[in-house]
């Protein structure tokens, strides 16, 4: 799959932002006043910034409001609706925390839970794709939620929780990679089932429909990332979990904490790039890839 920068940025940043909002909304000892203002500013900038960047890949962003209508059937629509509910409730909750020194608890609980629901809906967009065996797997929801919780805890300064979730995310990610490789290798969709010619003999793509590329080959038949996949997986694990864990284990300083956050974000970006670049869409079979 084509790793579109707008989608990678969106899933990374909004995952972090909604992860932060989850902890801000549910934490009994959530910050108040100007400290709260800074936390909410960062959380909203990440969540809203991610949502805005996702509209850059749309052909007609001016019609984006129509995407709120099909929540009964479409995970993309559910994601949009959940995001607006989460941001609305957390916006009001933030208003209380920053300006009235108040914790309007029910608003925080609903907003925080809906923040995680938003991340879950995002992951389900990928998981539902039978056409992409690597995604049609238990891992996208678990990983997206795990990354959101790890990043959210890290950015809201919950060091112990962050360390637990960072370690868990790394372990689950390794298991997921191994199991996704197995899932993709075991896919029962082949060029034989795609053409229905398998009963005659072994099928080989002889000639593509056109000498040039097309929307399908550009969007879904992406092949660059797989060559360095193992190295990139190690780099992503090191940046996402290992380095931040080391930085959190040494005595606390704001510089180390900031470095941990930056390293974590860089690691998640590499992981998301791989998430797309490694995924093979079955339509590639028709093109002999």
């Amino acid at each position, binding site marked *: *799959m084509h790793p579109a920068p707008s989608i990678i940025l969106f899933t990374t940043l909004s995952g972090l932002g909604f992860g932060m909002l989850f902890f801000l909304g549910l934490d009994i000892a959530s910050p108040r006043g100007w400290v709260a203002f800074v936390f909410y500013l960062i959380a909203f900038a990440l969540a809203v910034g991610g949502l805005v960047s996702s509209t850059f*890949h*749309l*052909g*007609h*962003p001016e*019609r*984006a409001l*129509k*995407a*709120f*209508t*099909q929540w*009964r*059937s*479409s*995970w*993309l*629509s559910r994601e*949009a609706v959940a995001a607006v509910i989460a941001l609305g409730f957390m916006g009001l909750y933030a208003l209380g925390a920053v300006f009235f020194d108040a914790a309007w608890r029910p608003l925080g609980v609903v907003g925080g839970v809906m923040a995680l629901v938003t991340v879950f809906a995002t992951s389900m*967009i990928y998981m*539902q*794709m*039978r*056409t*992409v065996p690597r995604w049609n797997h238990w891992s996208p929801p678990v990983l997206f939620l795990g990354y959101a919780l790890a990043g959210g805890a890290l950015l809201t300064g919950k060091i112990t929780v962050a360390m637990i979730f960072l370690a868990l995310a790394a372990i689950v990610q390794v298991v997921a990679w191994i199991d996704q490789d197995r899932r993709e290798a075991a896919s*029962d*969709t082949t*060029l034989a*089932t*795609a*053409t*229905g*010619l398998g*009963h*005659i*003999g*072994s*099928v*080989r*793509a*002889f*000639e*593509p*429909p*056109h000498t*040039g*590329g*097309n*929307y*399908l080959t*550009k*969007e*879904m038949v992406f092949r660059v990332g797989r060559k360095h996949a193992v190295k990139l997986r190690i780099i992503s694990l090191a940046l996402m979990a290992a380095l931040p864990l080391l930085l959190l284990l040494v005595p606390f300083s704001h510089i180390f904490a900031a470095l941990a956050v930056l390293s974590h974000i860089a690691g998640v970006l590499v992981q998301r790039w791989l998430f797309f670049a490694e995924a093979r*869409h*079955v*339509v590639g079979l*028709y*093109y002999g890839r």
Partner: protein
Amino acid sequence: MTSLPTHTEKSLGLVIDLDTCVGCHACVTACKGWNTENYGAPLADKDAYGAEPVGSFLNRIHSYEVQPETGPAQLFHFPKSCLHCADAPCVTVCPTGASYKRQEDGIVLVNETDCIGCGLCAWACPYGAREMDPVEKVMKKCTLCVDRIYNENLPEEDRQPACVRTCPAGARHFGDLADPDSDVSKLVAERSGIELMPEQGTAPVNRYLPPRPKDQPPEFDVLAPYLEPVAEEPKGFLGWLDRTLERIG
């Protein structure tokens, strides 16, 4: 509404004969022509005469080589367009309701004024039947020429999809696959028509007729018994030459 209808009154679709298709791409040209000049946004081309031409097409012809265990390889031309699936995954993923499947005839269509061009439906389709138009930035797909098949301004013989109407080999057939007595259903029954990628669970309406087994070439030429057998051992001058050359070599 992007939920799928529980049933459709008809299941209009195509039956494509892989034994008959000669790979001439006439259906591609007819499709591009009709669907550029009529219903919906035109099918654009970009950089058409440049180094990297791209364009949107609703129908593309692949070619596949099949190597049987014994005998020579066989070549098949393979037209591919939307299969108007009963359980169309492209429809349910649409966030805006632009994609829909019609209850009356089962055709899967895109309402282009509602399409935000997110491309999710193209990801959901295992067949590569949907392409984003490079100029209009809306999703394009086969409409089964919905503006021809019911069009009373056209002569009756033209009320079928442009690809079917133009096919010079008669490799494409159009009809109601839900009606067991229709010509297409009979053809599918007779030739054991198949679904593409049945394991994807899309329940496609279109069917492909597999190639009939090829004749086996005879082991010997039928006229051989009437010909003088070729001399195995040369005689006379050629025999002397053969023996001499053997000795030198």
